[in-house]
């Protein structure tokens, strides 16, 4: 099947790193030469069979790919509509989809001769995956994490430290992912000669959105292959949560040119989309602007100052989104909808009790969206959720919310 035709939605980005008007390279001059180097190196690596072979081997034997596609029978019966499937990214090594991207980028960092790695993290899943690959490849790493997130994701902070990473809490702003990214960029500008910035989501200056998407696209490709093998056709819908949106773009990309497959992205609706500064749904509640190297939908005030936003989920608590999602939102190929904290908590509990799988709060947003869509579908249809991460990191936070502690 031709998936790169002229009308394909899979052609982006263009040479300037744009998906329509979104994306680009809005960074300080200090970083530009490196960003261009990275693009060259990535293009070369993509064509290098040795790179592909090494990444494939690591994916299989280190990360544990392919991740299973699981039929969630009790949830299907409970919802009374479409068959519910989980793409089990939470079973990957380190407990989320983040390892897919980290393995790819650490190989690039090595190719580029960088001797130090930095990363930002929200929920800590990307921080843990980064600390993991840095341990394996013997590179020192510093993880920037908002002070608020350090508190609400303590298990991941401990994991990072045990893996040998330095965790730097960032107290600026609300102490969440946006602030961590600012601080990581400041470090990068300062140590650009030696340091590789391992961005965890499909956002930032070109080529990051493209590169991270490519490394995460294995999720959607496997869904397609596994579903075909099991059911002999394409699924009818795919759902994923969207913060920066790396698991979502990874899940969606293989299906963008399959119009029969409905695609749903769950944004963090926080206290509700009508609560000012009380959510992190940048596409539903924001407008296009420029931050962190790219043009994309952003939560901002009327003067273009960026808002902090809010989500119960540290991984979705970011006022922007990857530029390709902004493009897919405008083109209406993907339906993005907000899920509130309360809806995510309910989905978290349902999944835990009915399937015996404790999902990450991020992934629970995706599940909550699925719970709205599946009952409206026919029983012979199928809907796949990217279960992007496991919820071990969240048990304490959720326990507090539920009054169990």
């Amino acid at each position, binding site marked *: 099947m031709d998936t790169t035709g002229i009308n394909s939605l899979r052609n982006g980005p263009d040479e300037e790193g744009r998906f329509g008007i979104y994306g680009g390279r809005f960074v300080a*001059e200090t970083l530009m*030469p490196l960003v261009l180097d990275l693009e060259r190196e990535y293009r070369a690596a993509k064509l290098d069979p040795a790179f592909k072979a090494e990444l494939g081997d690591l994916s299989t034997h280190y990360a544990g790919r392919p991740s299973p596609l699981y039929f969630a029978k009790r949830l299907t019966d409970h919802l009374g509509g479409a068959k519910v499937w989980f793409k089990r990214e939470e079973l990957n090594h380190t407990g989320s989809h983040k390892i897919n991207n980290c393995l790819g980028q650490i190989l690039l960092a090595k190719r580029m001769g960088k001797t130090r790695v930095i990363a930002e993290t929200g929920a800590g899943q990307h921080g843990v995956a980064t600390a993991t690959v840095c341990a394996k490849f013997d590179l020192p790493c510093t993880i920037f994490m908002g002070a608020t997130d350090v508190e609400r994701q303590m298990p991941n902070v401990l994991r990072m430290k045990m893996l040998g990473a330095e965790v730097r809490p960032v107290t600026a702003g609300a102490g969440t992912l946006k602030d961590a990214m600012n601080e990581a960029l400041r470090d990068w*500008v300062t140590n*650009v*000669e030696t340091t590789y910035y391992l961005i965890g989501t499909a956002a930032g200056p070109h080529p990051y959105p493209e590169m991270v998407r490519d490394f995460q696209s294995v999720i959607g490709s496997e869904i397609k292959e596994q579903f075909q093998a099991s059911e002999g056709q394409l699924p009818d819908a795919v759902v994923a949560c969207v913060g920066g949106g790396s698991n979502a773009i990874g899940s969606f990309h293989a299906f963008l040119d399959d119009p029969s497959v409905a695609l749903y992205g769950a944004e963090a609706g926080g206290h509700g989309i009508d609560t000012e500064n009380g959510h992190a749904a940048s596409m539903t509640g924001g407008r296009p*602007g420029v931050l962190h190297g790219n043009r994309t939908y952003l939560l*901002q005030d*009327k003067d273009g100052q960026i808002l902090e936003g809010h989500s119960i989920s540290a991984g979705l608590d970011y006022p922007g989104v990857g530029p390709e999602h902004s493009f897919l939102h405008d083109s209406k190929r993907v339906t993005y909808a907000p899920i509130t904290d309360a809806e995510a908590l309910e989905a978290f509990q349902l999944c835990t009790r009915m399937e015996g799988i404790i999902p990450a709060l991020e992934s629970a947003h995706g599940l909550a969206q699925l719970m709205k869509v599946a009952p409206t579908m026919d029983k012979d249809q199928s809907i796949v959720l990217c279960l992007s991460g496991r919820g071990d990191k969240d048990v304490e936070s959720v326990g507090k919310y539920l009054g169990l502690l």
Partner: protein
Amino acid sequence: MSRIEKRFAECKAAGRPALVTYVMAGDPDLATSQAIMEALPQAGSDIIEFGMPFSDPMADGVAIQLGGQRALAGGMTLRGVLDMVETFRRKDENTPIVLMGYYNPIYIFGVDNFIAAAKHAGVDGLIIVDLPPEEDDELCIPALKAGINFIRLTTPTTDDKRLPAVLKNTSGFVYYVSMTGVTGAVIKSRGAVGEAVDRIKSHTDLPVAVGFGIKTAEDAAEIGKHADGIVVGTVLVDAVAKTLVDGKATDKTVAAVRDLVADIYSGVKRARG
């Protein structure tokens, strides 16, 4: 000849580098900030860089981050920055004003609206940190067409191969960032700065000003040996911060900035011996 070009020519004729001073618009409040701005030329400032506060200043160190937060908390907006320039221009027609900041507030204001309003207010140049030459179509080209200088940052990572692309649409002057780092960090090698200035000058006839990390009259005198201009910012924003009581301006605030500029100006004057 633009106000910026004229000013550099005057300084050159006087045998000294130009002193470029950065202050944050609206820090800590509108009236104090306006008074600081108006005190700068008399204290020795040749060119005023006026910071447009932004919530997420990714290339700035802590001092300027905090200055921006104070300005935003005091209600400063991009419209407010332009109004301050307009007020300044009624009293001073000669001191060039360069707005420095990040792209998003301008993008949201609307590029065409912004350029028209900046022109009307009497803005001479723009330094937009997150608009490299790769994004020239966004603001640089429209600004140049309107006769506003677009001043580009060059850095130690901008090598000879890349310099021509960076200088292509640069006008007014070239701003050499003395280090890889955020504003207010420490210059590791002054000698390397001189070499870099010479390297840039071999590519362009534009004046080259050096900034990031210049804190004292001694720094100014030393760096000013090679550079056509020296830029101070962090120390001035810090000087504002040190005079505040409970976050509010005191009768020492304007004087602190004025005195510091006068001191650094003494370094500028003796730079060429």
